[in-house]
Protein backbone atom coordinates (compact mmCIF):
# COMPACT_ATOMS: atom_id res chain seq x y z
CA UNK A 1 0.00 0.00 0.00
CA UNK A 2 1.19 3.49 -0.82
CA UNK A 3 1.29 6.19 1.84
CA UNK A 4 -1.79 8.27 1.19
CA UNK A 5 -2.48 11.86 2.18
CA UNK A 6 -5.34 14.32 2.33
CA UNK A 7 -3.80 17.28 0.48
CA UNK A 8 -6.65 19.75 0.04
CA UNK A 9 -10.05 20.53 1.53
CA UNK A 10 -12.97 22.86 1.02
CA UNK A 11 -16.47 23.27 2.33
CA UNK A 12 -19.53 25.38 1.67
CA UNK A 13 -21.39 27.05 4.44
CA UNK A 14 -23.83 24.61 6.10
CA UNK A 15 -27.43 25.70 6.52
CA UNK A 16 -29.79 26.77 3.77
CA UNK A 17 -28.36 26.93 0.29
CA UNK A 18 -30.10 28.49 -2.67
CA UNK A 19 -28.01 26.49 -5.14
CA UNK A 20 -28.47 22.83 -6.01
CA UNK A 21 -26.35 20.03 -4.57
CA UNK A 22 -24.79 19.71 -8.04
CA UNK A 23 -23.59 23.31 -8.03
CA UNK A 24 -22.38 23.21 -4.42
CA UNK A 25 -20.58 19.90 -4.99
CA UNK A 26 -18.80 21.13 -8.11
CA UNK A 27 -17.68 24.33 -6.39
CA UNK A 28 -16.25 22.62 -3.30
CA UNK A 29 -14.59 19.93 -5.44
CA UNK A 30 -12.79 22.66 -7.39
CA UNK A 31 -12.04 24.44 -4.13
CA UNK A 32 -10.41 21.35 -2.64
CA UNK A 33 -8.42 20.65 -5.82
CA UNK A 34 -7.07 24.21 -5.91
CA UNK A 35 -6.40 24.09 -2.16
CA UNK A 36 -4.15 21.14 -2.91
CA UNK A 37 -2.32 23.13 -5.57
CA UNK A 38 -3.58 20.77 -8.25
CA UNK A 39 -5.56 21.14 -11.45
CA UNK A 40 -8.69 19.10 -12.20
CA UNK A 41 -6.86 17.18 -14.95
CA UNK A 42 -4.63 15.67 -12.25
CA UNK A 43 -7.63 13.96 -10.63
CA UNK A 44 -7.89 10.27 -11.48
CA UNK A 45 -11.23 9.46 -9.87
CA UNK A 46 -14.19 11.31 -8.36
CA UNK A 47 -16.16 9.74 -5.52
CA UNK A 48 -19.48 11.43 -4.84
CA UNK A 49 -22.14 11.13 -2.15
CA UNK A 50 -25.60 12.64 -2.50
CA UNK A 51 -28.19 10.47 -0.72
CA UNK A 52 -31.19 12.71 -1.36
CA UNK A 53 -30.36 13.86 -4.88
CA UNK A 54 -33.55 12.30 -6.17
CA UNK A 55 -35.56 14.85 -4.17
CA UNK A 56 -33.98 17.37 -6.54
CA UNK A 57 -34.84 15.08 -9.49
CA UNK A 58 -31.15 14.54 -10.13
CA UNK A 59 -29.10 11.37 -9.94
CA UNK A 60 -25.76 10.32 -11.47
CA UNK A 61 -24.02 13.36 -10.02
CA UNK A 62 -20.43 12.20 -10.56
CA UNK A 63 -20.26 12.76 -14.33
CA UNK A 64 -22.05 16.09 -13.96
CA UNK A 65 -19.46 17.27 -11.44
CA UNK A 66 -16.63 16.07 -13.67
CA UNK A 67 -18.20 17.82 -16.67
CA UNK A 68 -18.41 20.97 -14.62
CA UNK A 69 -14.73 20.63 -13.71
CA UNK A 70 -13.74 20.14 -17.38
CA UNK A 71 -12.70 16.52 -16.88
CA UNK A 72 -15.60 14.54 -18.41
CA UNK A 73 -13.35 11.57 -19.18
CA UNK A 74 -12.49 10.96 -15.51
CA UNK A 75 -14.35 8.03 -13.91
CA UNK A 76 -16.72 8.65 -11.05
CA UNK A 77 -18.91 6.64 -8.70
CA UNK A 78 -21.62 7.51 -6.23
CA UNK A 79 -21.18 6.03 -2.76
CA UNK A 80 -24.22 5.75 -0.49
CA UNK A 81 -24.07 4.72 3.15
CA UNK A 82 -26.75 6.94 4.71
CA UNK A 83 -25.21 9.54 7.00
CA UNK A 84 -21.76 7.93 6.60
CA UNK A 85 -21.81 8.23 2.82
CA UNK A 86 -18.91 10.58 2.23
CA UNK A 87 -16.65 8.86 4.77
CA UNK A 88 -17.42 5.67 2.86
CA UNK A 89 -16.46 7.59 -0.30
CA UNK A 90 -13.23 8.63 1.42
CA UNK A 91 -12.55 4.98 2.21
CA UNK A 92 -13.05 4.09 -1.46
CA UNK A 93 -10.72 6.91 -2.51
CA UNK A 94 -8.13 5.69 -0.01
CA UNK A 95 -8.38 2.15 -1.37
CA UNK A 96 -7.93 3.43 -4.94
CA UNK A 97 -4.98 5.68 -4.17
CA UNK A 98 -3.21 3.46 -1.65
CA UNK A 99 -3.72 0.52 -3.98
CA UNK A 100 -2.21 2.34 -6.94
CA UNK A 101 -5.34 2.62 -9.08
CA UNK A 102 -5.27 6.43 -9.02
CA UNK A 103 -2.65 8.99 -7.95
CA UNK A 104 -5.23 11.51 -6.81
CA UNK A 105 -8.95 11.35 -6.17
CA UNK A 106 -11.51 13.88 -5.08
CA UNK A 107 -14.13 12.97 -2.47
CA UNK A 108 -17.18 15.19 -2.47
CA UNK A 109 -20.41 14.97 -0.52
CA UNK A 110 -23.34 17.30 -1.04
CA UNK A 111 -26.91 17.50 0.21
CA UNK A 112 -29.81 19.82 -0.19
CA UNK A 113 -32.81 19.29 2.07
CA UNK A 114 -33.90 22.89 2.55
CA UNK A 115 -36.56 22.58 -0.14
CA UNK A 116 -38.33 19.92 1.99
CA UNK A 117 -40.57 20.79 4.93
CA UNK A 118 -39.90 19.23 8.36
CA UNK A 119 -42.48 16.51 7.78
CA UNK A 120 -40.97 15.44 4.50
CA UNK A 121 -37.39 15.77 5.76
CA UNK A 122 -38.21 13.61 8.83
CA UNK A 123 -39.57 10.98 6.48
CA UNK A 124 -36.53 11.12 4.20
CA UNK A 125 -34.12 10.79 7.13
CA UNK A 126 -36.00 7.68 8.22
CA UNK A 127 -35.30 6.02 4.86
CA UNK A 128 -31.96 5.01 6.37
CA UNK A 129 -33.78 2.75 8.83
CA UNK A 130 -35.49 -0.56 7.99
CA UNK A 131 -38.72 0.47 6.22
CA UNK A 132 -40.92 -2.61 6.76
CA UNK A 133 -39.63 -3.48 10.23
CA UNK A 134 -38.85 -0.08 11.83
CA UNK A 135 -40.19 2.94 9.92
CA UNK A 136 -43.51 1.29 9.07
CA UNK A 137 -43.99 0.68 12.80
CA UNK A 138 -43.53 4.34 13.73
CA UNK A 139 -39.76 4.80 13.92
CA UNK A 140 -38.24 8.22 13.30
CA UNK A 141 -34.53 8.91 13.60
CA UNK A 142 -34.91 10.85 16.82
CA UNK A 143 -37.18 8.02 18.01
CA UNK A 144 -34.56 5.35 17.38
CA UNK A 145 -31.79 7.32 19.10
CA UNK A 146 -34.24 8.14 21.90
CA UNK A 147 -34.47 4.41 22.63
CA UNK A 148 -30.67 4.32 22.92
CA UNK A 149 -30.72 7.43 25.13
CA UNK A 150 -33.36 5.94 27.39
CA UNK A 151 -31.42 2.70 27.78
CA UNK A 152 -28.21 4.62 28.58
CA UNK A 153 -29.98 6.91 31.03
CA UNK A 154 -31.49 3.94 32.88
CA UNK A 155 -28.21 2.03 33.04
CA UNK A 156 -25.86 4.87 34.04
CA UNK A 157 -28.22 7.24 35.90
CA UNK A 158 -27.37 10.23 33.75
CA UNK A 159 -29.05 13.63 34.08
CA UNK A 160 -30.43 16.02 31.43
CA UNK A 161 -27.65 18.43 32.41
CA UNK A 162 -25.04 15.95 31.14
CA UNK A 163 -26.61 15.79 27.69
CA UNK A 164 -27.22 19.53 27.79
CA UNK A 165 -23.50 20.07 28.35
CA UNK A 166 -22.75 18.35 25.04
CA UNK A 167 -25.21 20.55 23.14
CA UNK A 168 -23.85 23.68 24.86
CA UNK A 169 -20.24 22.70 24.07
CA UNK A 170 -20.92 22.00 20.42
CA UNK A 171 -22.89 25.21 19.96
CA UNK A 172 -20.04 27.11 21.64
CA UNK A 173 -17.59 25.60 19.14
CA UNK A 174 -19.85 26.32 16.17
CA UNK A 175 -20.10 29.96 17.27
CA UNK A 176 -16.47 30.23 16.11
CA UNK A 177 -17.04 28.39 12.83
CA UNK A 178 -18.07 30.76 10.02
CA UNK A 179 -19.36 27.82 7.96
CA UNK A 180 -21.60 26.41 10.72
CA UNK A 181 -25.38 26.19 10.46
CA UNK A 182 -25.85 27.59 13.99
CA UNK A 183 -23.26 30.21 14.90
CA UNK A 184 -24.67 30.91 18.33
CA UNK A 185 -24.18 29.71 21.85
CA UNK A 186 -27.02 28.28 23.90
CA UNK A 187 -27.61 28.18 27.66
CA UNK A 188 -28.57 25.26 29.87
CA UNK A 189 -31.95 26.89 30.43
CA UNK A 190 -32.57 27.11 26.66
CA UNK A 191 -31.64 23.46 26.38
CA UNK A 192 -33.93 22.40 29.23
CA UNK A 193 -36.79 24.55 27.90
CA UNK A 194 -36.60 23.17 24.36
CA UNK A 195 -39.51 20.89 23.44
CA UNK A 196 -39.36 17.11 23.52
CA UNK A 197 -38.97 15.58 20.05
CA UNK A 198 -38.82 11.95 21.16
CA UNK A 199 -38.40 11.46 24.90
CA UNK A 200 -35.90 11.89 26.44
CA UNK A 201 -34.47 13.82 23.45
CA UNK A 202 -35.23 17.53 23.31
CA UNK A 203 -34.97 19.74 20.26
CA UNK A 204 -31.48 20.87 21.35
CA UNK A 205 -30.34 17.24 21.56
CA UNK A 206 -30.92 16.94 17.81
CA UNK A 207 -28.87 18.01 14.82
CA UNK A 208 -30.60 20.17 12.21
CA UNK A 209 -31.53 19.29 8.65
CA UNK A 210 -28.81 21.16 6.75
CA UNK A 211 -27.82 21.85 3.20
CA UNK A 212 -24.14 21.85 2.41
CA UNK A 213 -21.19 20.42 0.52
CA UNK A 214 -17.67 19.39 1.51
CA UNK A 215 -14.75 17.95 -0.42
CA UNK A 216 -11.25 16.65 0.16
CA UNK A 217 -8.52 15.57 -2.22
CA UNK A 218 -6.68 12.33 -1.49
CA UNK A 219 -3.32 11.70 -3.14
CA UNK A 220 -0.38 9.33 -2.99
CA UNK A 221 2.62 10.81 -1.21
CA UNK A 222 4.80 9.89 -4.18
CA UNK A 223 2.53 11.87 -6.53
CA UNK A 224 2.84 15.10 -4.54
CA UNK A 225 6.31 16.64 -4.76
CA UNK A 226 5.67 19.79 -2.77
CA UNK A 227 2.37 19.90 -0.89
CA UNK A 228 0.87 23.38 -0.69
CA UNK A 229 -0.69 22.60 2.68
CA UNK A 230 0.32 20.47 5.60
CA UNK A 231 -1.08 17.11 4.51
CA UNK A 232 -2.98 14.66 6.70
CA UNK A 233 -1.38 11.23 6.54
CA UNK A 234 -4.21 8.68 6.45
CA UNK A 235 -2.98 6.26 9.10
CA UNK A 236 -6.16 4.21 9.09
CA UNK A 237 -9.30 3.96 7.00
CA UNK A 238 -11.66 1.41 8.51
CA UNK A 239 -15.31 0.56 8.07
CA UNK A 240 -17.64 -1.91 9.72
CA UNK A 241 -21.27 -2.95 9.73
CA UNK A 242 -23.67 -4.30 12.32
CA UNK A 243 -27.17 -5.66 12.75
CA UNK A 244 -29.34 -2.85 11.44
CA UNK A 245 -32.56 -3.12 13.43
CA UNK A 246 -32.52 -2.11 17.08
CA UNK A 247 -35.03 -4.84 17.90
CA UNK A 248 -32.50 -7.45 16.79
CA UNK A 249 -29.64 -6.14 18.94
CA UNK A 250 -29.06 -7.45 22.43
CA UNK A 251 -27.04 -4.40 23.57
CA UNK A 252 -28.52 -0.90 23.32
CA UNK A 253 -25.65 0.74 25.21
CA UNK A 254 -23.51 1.36 22.15
CA UNK A 255 -23.13 0.87 18.42
CA UNK A 256 -21.33 -2.38 17.57
CA UNK A 257 -20.14 -1.09 14.19
CA UNK A 258 -18.28 1.78 15.88
CA UNK A 259 -16.52 -0.65 18.20
CA UNK A 260 -15.51 -2.87 15.30
CA UNK A 261 -14.38 -0.03 13.01
CA UNK A 262 -12.40 1.53 15.86
CA UNK A 263 -10.64 -1.75 16.64
CA UNK A 264 -9.68 -2.10 12.99
CA UNK A 265 -8.53 1.51 12.73
CA UNK A 266 -6.31 1.46 15.81
CA UNK A 267 -4.83 -1.84 14.66
CA UNK A 268 -4.10 -0.41 11.19
CA UNK A 269 -2.48 2.69 12.64
CA UNK A 270 -0.58 0.81 15.33
CA UNK A 271 -1.66 3.27 18.01
CA UNK A 272 -4.17 3.29 20.86
CA UNK A 273 -7.12 5.54 21.75
CA UNK A 274 -5.01 7.33 24.38
CA UNK A 275 -2.86 8.80 21.61
CA UNK A 276 -5.75 10.66 19.93
CA UNK A 277 -5.34 14.45 20.32
CA UNK A 278 -8.80 15.48 19.13
CA UNK A 279 -11.81 13.96 17.40
CA UNK A 280 -14.70 14.80 15.15
CA UNK A 281 -17.40 12.26 16.05
CA UNK A 282 -20.91 11.57 14.78
CA UNK A 283 -23.19 13.54 17.12
CA UNK A 284 -26.46 13.47 15.21
CA UNK A 285 -27.94 13.49 18.72
CA UNK A 286 -26.18 14.25 22.00
CA UNK A 287 -26.50 10.58 23.02
CA UNK A 288 -24.67 9.66 19.80
CA UNK A 289 -21.60 11.64 20.92
CA UNK A 290 -21.64 9.85 24.28
CA UNK A 291 -21.93 6.41 22.70
CA UNK A 292 -19.26 7.25 20.12
CA UNK A 293 -16.69 8.32 22.70
CA UNK A 294 -17.20 5.08 24.63
CA UNK A 295 -17.42 2.77 21.62
CA UNK A 296 -14.23 4.31 20.18
CA UNK A 297 -12.44 3.47 23.43
CA UNK A 298 -11.75 7.14 24.22
CA UNK A 299 -13.64 6.90 27.53
CA UNK A 300 -14.65 3.90 29.68
CA UNK A 301 -18.23 2.67 29.38
CA UNK A 302 -20.71 4.77 31.27
CA UNK A 303 -18.43 7.80 31.79
CA UNK A 304 -18.55 9.96 28.65
CA UNK A 305 -21.70 11.90 29.55
CA UNK A 306 -20.19 12.84 32.89
CA UNK A 307 -16.87 13.82 31.26
CA UNK A 308 -18.77 16.15 28.93
CA UNK A 309 -20.29 17.93 31.92
CA UNK A 310 -16.84 18.28 33.49
CA UNK A 311 -15.39 19.90 30.36
CA UNK A 312 -13.01 17.12 29.35
CA UNK A 313 -14.24 17.29 25.74
CA UNK A 314 -14.25 21.09 25.44
CA UNK A 315 -11.73 22.76 23.12
CA UNK A 316 -9.40 23.40 26.04
CA UNK A 317 -10.11 20.06 27.71
CA UNK A 318 -7.96 16.94 27.79
CA UNK A 319 -9.64 15.54 24.65
CA UNK A 320 -11.35 18.14 22.45
CA UNK A 321 -14.35 16.64 20.65
CA UNK A 322 -16.15 18.25 17.72
CA UNK A 323 -14.30 21.58 17.67
CA UNK A 324 -16.19 22.30 14.42
CA UNK A 325 -19.50 22.28 16.31
CA UNK A 326 -20.26 18.75 15.15
CA UNK A 327 -23.41 17.63 13.40
CA UNK A 328 -25.27 19.12 16.33
CA UNK A 329 -24.40 22.75 15.60
CA UNK A 330 -22.16 22.90 12.52
CA UNK A 331 -25.00 21.00 10.85
CA UNK A 332 -25.73 17.70 9.16
CA UNK A 333 -26.03 17.85 5.39
CA UNK A 334 -26.20 14.05 5.38
CA UNK A 335 -23.92 13.19 2.46
CA UNK A 336 -21.45 15.99 3.16
CA UNK A 337 -20.99 15.26 6.86
CA UNK A 338 -18.19 12.66 6.67
CA UNK A 339 -16.10 14.75 4.29
CA UNK A 340 -16.87 17.84 6.37
CA UNK A 341 -15.34 16.22 9.45
CA UNK A 342 -12.09 15.75 7.53
CA UNK A 343 -12.23 19.37 6.30
CA UNK A 344 -12.29 20.44 9.96
CA UNK A 345 -9.30 18.23 10.83
CA UNK A 346 -7.41 19.57 7.78
CA UNK A 347 -8.20 23.14 8.82
CA UNK A 348 -7.13 22.50 12.41
CA UNK A 349 -3.79 21.04 11.28
CA UNK A 350 -3.25 23.92 8.83
CA UNK A 351 -4.06 26.68 11.30
CA UNK A 352 -7.25 27.66 9.52
CA UNK A 353 -9.67 27.00 12.39
CA UNK A 354 -9.34 30.50 13.78
CA UNK A 355 -11.03 31.03 17.13
CA UNK A 356 -11.66 27.35 17.72
CA UNK A 357 -8.14 25.90 17.61
CA UNK A 358 -7.39 22.78 19.60
CA UNK A 359 -4.04 22.64 21.42
CA UNK A 360 -2.65 19.41 19.96
CA UNK A 361 -3.14 18.13 16.40
CA UNK A 362 -0.68 15.28 15.90
CA UNK A 363 -3.28 12.49 15.82
CA UNK A 364 -6.90 13.14 14.86
CA UNK A 365 -9.88 10.80 14.60
CA UNK A 366 -12.98 11.09 12.40
CA UNK A 367 -16.02 8.93 13.16
CA UNK A 368 -19.08 8.85 10.94
CA UNK A 369 -22.15 6.64 11.39
CA UNK A 370 -24.77 5.46 8.92
CA UNK A 371 -28.27 5.51 10.45
CA UNK A 372 -28.26 3.76 13.85
CA UNK A 373 -24.96 2.09 13.12
CA UNK A 374 -25.71 -0.32 10.32
CA UNK A 375 -22.54 1.20 8.86
CA UNK A 376 -19.65 3.15 10.34
CA UNK A 377 -16.33 4.68 9.31
CA UNK A 378 -13.34 5.49 11.49
CA UNK A 379 -10.37 7.35 10.03
CA UNK A 380 -7.15 8.20 11.85
CA UNK A 381 -4.91 10.98 10.61
CA UNK A 382 -1.34 11.87 11.50
CA UNK A 383 1.35 14.24 10.33
CA UNK A 384 4.30 13.66 8.00
Amino acid at each position, binding site marked *: MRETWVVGAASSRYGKLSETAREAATKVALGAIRDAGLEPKQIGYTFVSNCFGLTEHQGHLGPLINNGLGIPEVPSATVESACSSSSAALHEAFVHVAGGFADAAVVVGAERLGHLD*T*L*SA*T*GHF*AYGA*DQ*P*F*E*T*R*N*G*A*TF*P*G*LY*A*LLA*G*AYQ*AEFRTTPEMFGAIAIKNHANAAHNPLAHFQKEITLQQYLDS*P*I*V*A*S*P*LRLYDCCPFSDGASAVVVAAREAIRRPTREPLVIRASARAGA*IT*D*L*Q*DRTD*LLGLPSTRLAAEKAFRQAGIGPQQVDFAEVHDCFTIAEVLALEDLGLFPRGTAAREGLEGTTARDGALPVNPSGGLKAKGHPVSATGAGQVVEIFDQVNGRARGREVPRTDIALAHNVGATGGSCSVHLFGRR
Partner: protein
Amino acid sequence: MPTEPPSPHSIEEFVQGYERAGELRGFRCAACGRRTVTWGLACSGCGGGPLQESPLAATGRIVAGTLVTVASEEFVNEVPYAYVLVELDGGGRVSGWISGIRSEEEVAPGTPVVFTPSYKAGVQFRRTEGDASAVPPR
Protein backbone atom coordinates in the same frame (compact mmCIF):
# COMPACT_ATOMS: atom_id res chain seq x y z
CA MET B 1 -24.98 -19.82 5.27
CA PRO B 2 -27.80 -18.16 3.29
CA THR B 3 -30.51 -20.48 2.11
CA GLU B 4 -33.57 -20.27 -0.06
CA PRO B 5 -36.05 -17.55 0.90
CA PRO B 6 -37.90 -18.66 4.03
CA SER B 7 -41.28 -18.03 2.48
CA PRO B 8 -42.67 -17.80 -1.04
CA HIS B 9 -44.15 -14.33 -0.65
CA SER B 10 -42.59 -10.87 -0.73
CA ILE B 11 -41.68 -8.88 2.39
CA GLU B 12 -44.65 -6.60 1.75
CA GLU B 13 -47.05 -9.56 1.49
CA PHE B 14 -45.52 -11.12 4.59
CA VAL B 15 -45.87 -7.93 6.64
CA GLN B 16 -49.34 -7.13 5.35
CA GLY B 17 -50.31 -10.74 6.06
CA TYR B 18 -49.58 -10.67 9.76
CA GLU B 19 -50.97 -7.17 10.15
CA ARG B 20 -54.28 -8.18 8.54
CA ALA B 21 -54.50 -11.55 10.27
CA GLY B 22 -53.82 -9.99 13.64
CA GLU B 23 -51.25 -12.67 14.34
CA LEU B 24 -47.57 -11.77 14.40
CA ARG B 25 -45.28 -13.98 12.39
CA GLY B 26 -41.53 -14.11 12.19
CA PHE B 27 -38.62 -16.44 11.69
CA ARG B 28 -36.80 -18.93 13.85
CA CYS B 29 -33.18 -19.81 13.09
CA ALA B 30 -32.84 -23.59 12.88
CA ALA B 31 -29.16 -23.31 13.83
CA CYS B 32 -29.27 -21.10 16.96
CA GLY B 33 -32.97 -20.92 17.77
CA ARG B 34 -33.05 -17.10 17.64
CA ARG B 35 -36.43 -15.59 16.81
CA THR B 36 -36.86 -12.40 14.81
CA VAL B 37 -39.48 -10.67 12.75
CA THR B 38 -36.86 -9.17 10.43
CA TRP B 39 -36.71 -10.77 7.00
CA GLY B 40 -33.47 -12.32 5.77
CA LEU B 41 -31.94 -15.30 4.01
CA ALA B 42 -29.71 -16.12 6.97
CA CYS B 43 -29.71 -15.41 10.68
CA SER B 44 -28.22 -12.00 11.46
CA GLY B 45 -27.25 -13.36 14.87
CA CYS B 46 -25.23 -16.47 14.01
CA GLY B 47 -24.95 -16.30 10.21
CA GLY B 48 -26.55 -19.74 9.97
CA GLY B 49 -29.99 -20.99 9.16
CA PRO B 50 -32.29 -21.93 7.61
CA LEU B 51 -34.82 -19.43 8.88
CA GLN B 52 -38.15 -21.10 9.42
CA GLU B 53 -41.29 -18.98 9.30
CA SER B 54 -43.22 -19.36 12.50
CA PRO B 55 -45.88 -17.62 14.57
CA LEU B 56 -44.79 -15.20 17.26
CA ALA B 57 -46.64 -14.49 20.49
CA ALA B 58 -48.98 -11.51 20.54
CA THR B 59 -48.06 -10.55 24.09
CA GLY B 60 -44.84 -9.30 25.56
CA ARG B 61 -43.14 -6.60 27.57
CA ILE B 62 -41.60 -3.31 26.55
CA VAL B 63 -37.80 -3.34 26.47
CA ALA B 64 -37.44 0.34 25.48
CA GLY B 65 -39.92 3.06 24.64
CA THR B 66 -40.06 6.70 23.61
CA LEU B 67 -42.82 9.26 23.31
CA VAL B 68 -42.66 10.67 19.77
CA THR B 69 -43.94 14.18 19.18
CA VAL B 70 -42.37 14.91 15.77
CA ALA B 71 -43.45 12.24 13.29
CA SER B 72 -43.00 11.36 9.65
CA GLU B 73 -45.90 11.79 7.24
CA GLU B 74 -47.40 8.35 7.90
CA PHE B 75 -47.73 9.03 11.64
CA VAL B 76 -48.31 12.78 11.74
CA ASN B 77 -51.93 12.32 12.81
CA GLU B 78 -50.95 10.02 15.68
CA VAL B 79 -48.70 12.33 17.71
CA PRO B 80 -47.99 12.02 20.47
CA TYR B 81 -47.53 8.28 20.23
CA ALA B 82 -45.06 5.79 21.67
CA TYR B 83 -42.50 3.88 19.62
CA VAL B 84 -41.47 0.75 21.49
CA LEU B 85 -39.30 -2.34 21.31
CA VAL B 86 -41.16 -5.35 22.68
CA GLU B 87 -39.73 -8.65 23.91
CA LEU B 88 -42.44 -11.14 22.97
CA ASP B 89 -43.44 -13.97 25.28
CA GLY B 90 -41.72 -17.05 23.89
CA GLY B 91 -38.92 -15.04 22.30
CA GLY B 92 -38.30 -12.55 19.54
CA ARG B 93 -38.31 -8.77 19.60
CA VAL B 94 -40.44 -6.54 17.43
CA SER B 95 -40.87 -2.79 17.13
CA GLY B 96 -44.28 -1.17 17.20
CA TRP B 97 -46.30 1.86 18.15
CA ILE B 98 -48.89 2.63 20.83
CA SER B 99 -51.50 5.34 20.54
CA GLY B 100 -52.96 7.51 23.29
CA ILE B 101 -49.75 7.79 25.28
CA ARG B 102 -49.10 11.05 27.11
CA SER B 103 -45.91 10.37 29.06
CA GLU B 104 -42.87 8.14 28.69
CA GLU B 105 -43.60 6.59 32.08
CA GLU B 106 -46.56 4.84 30.45
CA VAL B 107 -44.16 2.88 28.23
CA ALA B 108 -41.46 2.16 30.80
CA PRO B 109 -39.43 -1.04 30.40
CA GLY B 110 -41.35 -4.04 31.69
CA THR B 111 -44.79 -2.71 30.74
CA PRO B 112 -46.94 -5.57 29.39
CA VAL B 113 -48.43 -5.04 25.92
CA VAL B 114 -50.47 -6.95 23.36
CA PHE B 115 -50.38 -6.79 19.57
CA THR B 116 -53.59 -5.26 18.30
CA PRO B 117 -54.91 -5.20 14.75
CA SER B 118 -54.70 -1.61 13.50
CA TYR B 119 -56.57 0.62 11.11
CA LYS B 120 -53.26 1.54 9.51
CA ALA B 121 -50.06 -0.11 8.33
CA GLY B 122 -47.55 -1.06 11.00
CA VAL B 123 -47.39 -3.14 14.14
CA GLN B 124 -49.57 -1.57 16.81
CA PHE B 125 -49.54 -2.58 20.45
CA ARG B 126 -51.65 -1.55 23.39
CA ARG B 127 -50.82 -1.64 27.06
CA THR B 128 -52.46 -4.41 29.07
CA GLU B 129 -51.51 -3.33 32.58
CA GLY B 130 -54.71 -2.93 34.53
CA ASP B 131 -56.75 -3.97 31.50
CA ALA B 132 -58.65 -7.15 32.37
CA SER B 133 -60.22 -7.30 28.93
CA ALA B 134 -56.87 -7.71 27.23
CA VAL B 135 -56.97 -11.03 25.43
CA PRO B 136 -54.35 -11.85 22.85
CA PRO B 137 -55.91 -12.06 19.39
CA ARG B 138 -56.08 -15.60 18.05
